[in-house]
């Protein structure tokens, strides 16, 4: 398995939040999310294994963390989903979390961001799409890196 080039999206979470202020119907917002998902570079199939799979019911999500040996460490993530909307949501998550220190990850107000994007329902436990589990997993990886 070759090393992944760490992928950074050229859109920032601030830009997304600002864009969403101007989108008032759900169709435009979902269109935006789908487009963000399309910009997310696809994960190499070699990483789409059980080891990187985040448990979920309906759609699949894979998450590959890279912890850089700097002090404090920075953690970058590559991730993907087989569903378009979830992929877009994953892209938003990576904007918030990827390339950050464990402390920044743990301090990030993901609920607040999803509230502002009017996407909070995607973080609810009933959406068994693996997306919520992904947030938990990212936070637990950050927690582990912080403890080391």
């Amino acid at each position: 398995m070759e090393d992944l080039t760490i992928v950074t999206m050229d859109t920032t979470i601030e830009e997304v939040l600002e864009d969403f202020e101007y989108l008032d119907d759900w169709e435009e917002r979902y269109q935006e999310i789908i487009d963000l998902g399309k910009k997310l570079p696809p994960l190499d199939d070699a990483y789409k294994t059980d080891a990187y799979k985040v448990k979920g019911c309906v759609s699949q999500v894979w998450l590959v963390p890279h912890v850089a040996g700097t002090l404090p460490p920075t953690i970058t993530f590559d991730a993907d989903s087989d569903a378009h909307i979830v992929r877009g949501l994953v892209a938003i998550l990576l904007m918030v979390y990827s390339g950050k220190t464990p402390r920044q990850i743990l301090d990030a107000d993901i609920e607040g961001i999803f509230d502002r994007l009017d996407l909070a329902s995607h973080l609810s436990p009933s959406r068994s799409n693996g997306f919520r589990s992904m947030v938990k997993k990212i936070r637990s990886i950050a927690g582990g890196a912080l403890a080391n």
Partner: protein
Amino acid sequence: MEETLVESPRKLDDAVRLSDEHALRYRGDFPILDRKVHGKPLVYLDNSATSQKPRAVLDALEDYYTRLNANVHRGLHTLSEEATNAYEAARERVARFINAPARSLVFVRNTTEGINLVASAWGRKNVGAGDEILLSVMEHHSNIVPWQMLARETGAVLRYFDIREDGSLDMDQADDLITERTRIVSIAHMSNVLGTVNPVEAIVERAHDAGALVFVDAAQSVPHMAVDVARLGCDFFAFSGHKMCGPTGIGGLYGRPDLLETMDPYMGGGSMIDEVRLDGFTCADIPEKFEAGTPNIAHAIVFGDVVDYLSAIGVEHIHTHERALTDYTIERLSEIDGLTVYGHAPGRGGAISFNLDDMHPSDLSTVLDRQGIAIRAGHHCAQPLMRRLGTPYGATARASLYFYNTSEEIDTMIAAIHRARNLFSA
């Protein structure tokens, strides 16, 4: 709603028109159907997962706790006596609904518990190493895993009926699969994915000839069609109240009385005993033997009102009108380019699974939800069937109907599917 029905752009055939009239007659009984979701009128098409509840059932629940609440089978006071009478009267009514004697009807939480009860209480005593348990590839996990657990414990072997191209059970395999080694055949009456109604009577005949028993998972059939366990001739039969307008947490398990009598209890506790001494116990008669602990009294009693409600409508009418709406739904879905409907067995029921091109069912369901439409997306607790069908992503979307659904709601769903496609192809 009545007016928009008249304005409907397509000319409905008589069967669909009658189905709509029937639905509109009873829709008003269901307060939740007036709800809005994301600002749109709710279109509830997830009835195979659970049905909505009519006012009569909600009132009956309140009435129980307002007027009758007491523990059953133990007090000598008036309330306990009345609650016990109501509980046993409900057993009579529910049993009559499937044409079974009351003593053969065990109150369970749901179909899943009924299957687990039999797999454990009958299976451990009657199934040994090398014995065969026959299921089908279309089974719900609830009708697979309890038998796998039993097989793991006893060394029994699981075998599976395959399906034909149209989603019907491949009965040509019956001779190979049903042998003198078969101890039990456990089969869905109606598939929760394909809508296929399986030929239970024919299976019972073959199984009994071979000396095997038959368990019918009737979770999807009892809500939608008249069933008669005496006519089916099956040995066990389980169904869930919540899929037929009742509350969650109550269901029925029918067992042939002579079998129930020889089975060990499933759980120990109060109510299921005749006498307890420090060195042992003796069991109560059936069906109490299988109802350890304080049962779900309130919901069991309301279950009686549920079957009365359905009987007053007439389950055969529900069946007829749902068939018409099922045909209509499949016809409308099939008009969409790139849409695949799974299951075309003759006489199929209204659990309608489909996929649209390479769109993930999760995406489709999310976008439909934004338009107020509740469908299900996923593997429907039937992963082996998803593999067998080769569905993309191991999942399907599923619209499942009940007697309160109208063709207008189906039209709304069809329009929403087109909108979803536009969104994803933009």
